[in-house]
């Protein structure tokens, strides 16, 4: 691989790592603040789709191990931040 190609790969890897860390940070902040945000809810919120069902902690595990669902969450978090940064779509 050429020098430029290597540099490009490194940049992409760094971006992906930053996005993953950012997603984990956002989710852990939510987990800490959950009781304040969804006050009154007795049960812990779960994300459900088809046969899958995850709490925030379990979903952070998916992000950590970069499964398809974990990558979808990272991607969505990037889009969410980009949309909110320009004032919503």
């Amino acid at each position, binding site marked *: 691989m050429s020098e430029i190609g290597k540099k490009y790969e490194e940049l992409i890897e760094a971006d992906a790592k930053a996005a993953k860390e950012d997603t984990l940070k*956002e*989710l852990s*902040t*939510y987990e800490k*603040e*959950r009781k304040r*945000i*969804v006050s009154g*809810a007795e*049960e812990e*919120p*779960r*994300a*459900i*789709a*088809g046969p*899958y*069902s995850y709490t*925030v902690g379990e*979903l952070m595990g998916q992000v950590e191990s970069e499964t398809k*669902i974990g990558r*979808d*969450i990272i991607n*969505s*978090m990037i*889009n*969410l931040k980009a*949309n*909110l940064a320009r004032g*919503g*779509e």
Partner: protein
Amino acid sequence: MAAKTLSVKELGKQYVKRMEKPILVYKKPFLVNWKDIFVRFPRYCHVLLIAPHHASPDYTDYSIQGADDFFAFANSIATVKYLRDTQATRANVEKEIKEFNPRLVVHYDHGSANAIYGESAVNTPQAVIDTANADKLNLRVMSTVSCLSASGLGPTAVSKGCSCYVGYNDLHWIITTTHMSFWNCADKVHKKLVLGYSTQTGFDAAIITYNANIAYYASIGDTFTAVHLQMDRDRLTLVGSETATTCPKRLEIIKPYYELVRSKKIPDLVWPPQVFELDKEIINVRQ
């Protein structure tokens, strides 16, 4: 007598007056006879609503609540056949499509790339519409809140004569504590169709509602819900005709009067809409 010629100043004043007119102009309410309303707007739209409920805990614990909410809305303005819980079998769905002949089929349950599911006699998921019987959707509009089906079954159904198929091309997520927001966004598609709007209008209304909900949940710090709403919004897919409708356009009574009329607190009062609900939403977004 010669007509009075307006001076330039007067013309200018009129022009400014026209420019200053607000975008939303509401007329005063007027009295009407409810019988006239029902004669003028009969329940054209025939809707088949499919919402099974499998053994808990399951996605259908929540999706059936979304279906009930849509039924409460649609039942007052359309003719709805509701196949709920154990009634949502493949045999019943095929029978009702043939006999009830709905223009609009609405579904809330699990889905896969090539099928949408209902319930078998033993309370387990059973494909109610798949590639084998997709031709039964011929000349109908299908709107489903389920995983994946718009990626495979949607194009297959459209190739077999379905006017339009609206669904999700990947997993459809909900959050248990805020699940009603997810249904309120998704059901905009079929709510608009019941009111006589086109599939594209329903699709746009759903996207607008998703955007508003995403912004709200992000603003209160609930990123868990916002992220999942965003995934659902990006996965909502329309296959087929964008101009398909299921009934003639009806008047939408502007809120809050809509709720008052529905609950019969003002039974003979109708608020004539100058701007339909969706148009208002679009104007708000553009502003």
